[in-house]
């Protein structure tokens, strides 16, 4: 599934970032990279960004179209950030 499809409160792990080289590299440097665990906190209205917390301790606003290119797998409730 894609991050954009994950419900609020859902814990997930990034399996791949399907963006072009530079963009993927920068997003990885910021903190969204393969293997990172995320908690989806909320999303802004009308297709606005997702608010996520990473296992590394950061919180990010991620545009919906970017979230649509980040593949994730759901984690059990006891796992993740």
């Amino acid at each position: 599934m894609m991050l954009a499809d994950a419900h609020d409160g859902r814990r997930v792990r990034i399996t791949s970032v399907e963006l072009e080289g530079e963009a993927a590299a920068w997003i990885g440097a910021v903190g969204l990279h393969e293997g990172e665990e995320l908690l989806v906190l909320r999303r802004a209205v009308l297709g606005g960004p997702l608010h996520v917390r990473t296992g590394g301790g950061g919180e990010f606003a991620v545009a919906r179209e970017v979230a649509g290119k980040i593949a994730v797998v759901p984690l059990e409730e006891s796992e993740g950030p």
Partner: protein
Amino acid sequence: MSAEPSCHAEPARVRPPHEVAGALTIALAGRPNSGKSSLYNVLTGGDAHVGNYPGITVDILEGDVTLPSGASAVVADLPGFYSVEATVDAATDEGVARSFLDATQKSGRALVVVQALDPTRLALGLRLTAELLRAKLPLVVVLTHQDVLTREGHTIDVPALSDAIGAPVVLVNARDRATKAVVLAAVEDHRREGSDAQGSGKLDASRIAKAVVKDVGNAAELRRRRMTERLDAVLLHPLVGPFLFVGIMSLLFAAVFLVADPASNLMDKLVGLSRAWLANAFGKNLVTSFFADGLLGGAGTVLAFMPQIVILTVALELLEASGYLARGAFLVDRLLRLLGLSGRSFLPLLMGHACAVPAIAATRIVRDPRERLTTILVLPLMTCSARLPTYGLVLATFFGHRSALFRALIFVGLYFAGIMTALVASWVLRRTATKGKGLPLVLEIPSYRVPQAKVVLRKAGQAARRFLRDVGTVIVATAAVLWVLLTVPMPGSTAEPGIERSVAASVGKAIEPATRPAGFDWRINVGLIGSFGAREVMVGTMGVIFGVENAADDPAPLTTRLRETKKPDGSPVYTTRTGLALLAFFVLACQCMSTVAAIKRETGSWRWPAFVVAYTYALGYAAAVLVYQVSAFFGIV
């Protein structure tokens, strides 16, 4: 027109070498919100001057420090950045940091990079550490928020972290004075030992963070987290959040103008007294007129705007340091994306309501080059405070008899007209001149923090200095040139001696056929010519034309003169329609050479500032003609 900002095409300007080129340079690096500003403040005591670095055309602030050995060093404050490897555009904060590090390395100057790293987000910060190590930069890592780490109930095994990354690490509270000695000692030790034994940068940030951070539990931290979650639940609520956001922004602007107004009046009075003293001391002649009306008049305009610039900077810094501004960007991102921008453009667009010059510099936080260029190109449409005196004059002249509420509504309408035009312009630009695929938005949302007064005041001081340097000099120069144009008679002119015979009046009359459809006569044209360089001088210029002294300080006599100016047939020259047309022109036209210079500086080309002047003047003229002509159909006289 190319979609790429020309900074790609034109290499960065090389400045003269730094005056203390022999001293060690300590480059302060780190992600945004890593505690870098606090660290800079504690290291330098807030001392900041603009450094000269080869290849860097933007301001890198630096402060002088003395190392424990007694040697001198310079601390250079780099902008916050996430990566030196994934750099898209040389003009963004990441590009500036990268250029600085590359240029300093190549110059052979002694350099140590001090990375400010927020230990509460250790794994994130270590990714940048790895990149800096891979770039073979001599590195000292400073974990900045020891106090927050303790409050959150964590400890860090600092020696283990240092071993794991292969670089010295110190843990400090960046707001504590003792930090300076600890950090400078670590820097000097690293210089002595050399960086040959540094790690290669091949490290697993998440694994290291998990290994060195111990959770010792803390009830206070649990309460803090709950408080943050509760605050976010309200401030970022899908429905309540946007309303609160609009309310907070409205309060901010109301507060800025309420607080700045008495200070601006005081500045005006001081300059007025100086002008009166000049006239009394040296009598009324051409030379004193040049100094009093030309130079001091211009200086008065600059000083009157200073309080607004400083107070707005303080307000925005408070919002940013508290963590709210990033949340504002989260809320408005979708709206801005519809128009080809993103939440990252929100801060510069907001700053543009005080002054476009610092706002254009603030676009460096926008990583996407096309989005950044679009933001720069539409920023001059935001209602900056320099427009307000003209708005006030027109409202007092033509709507003085209407209620205060009516005038307030027109005022708000003018602000919205600027915002709406900017949004429509960005929509059009993203489909034409700056067309192309945008970079994705990922915006870090920092923790809520109590802003640090010293840091906020330092930023306000920087904004004031930049305003004086970039805007002030242009306004004073414009006022001086304008004085000459209004005073020197046009050769061969047969008009009555006085203002009508001046060079400016002759030009104003020559362009009357073009401006008549907008209801502008030669006098308004002269005002518009004068305000081409700085729109602030419009009211003062109209005062000179109508023989009203100190019109910028007290426009009441000028409003009466404007209302009472008649045509030969006895009908008024200026009507409500003229006032509305003038407002339309002022909302849209980029009458600001400081803004033009700022756009040139940020895009590295004259093409984009020329484009901005052309399109905003075309829009302003078209809108003025449209408003003047259409308002007649609605029975407005």
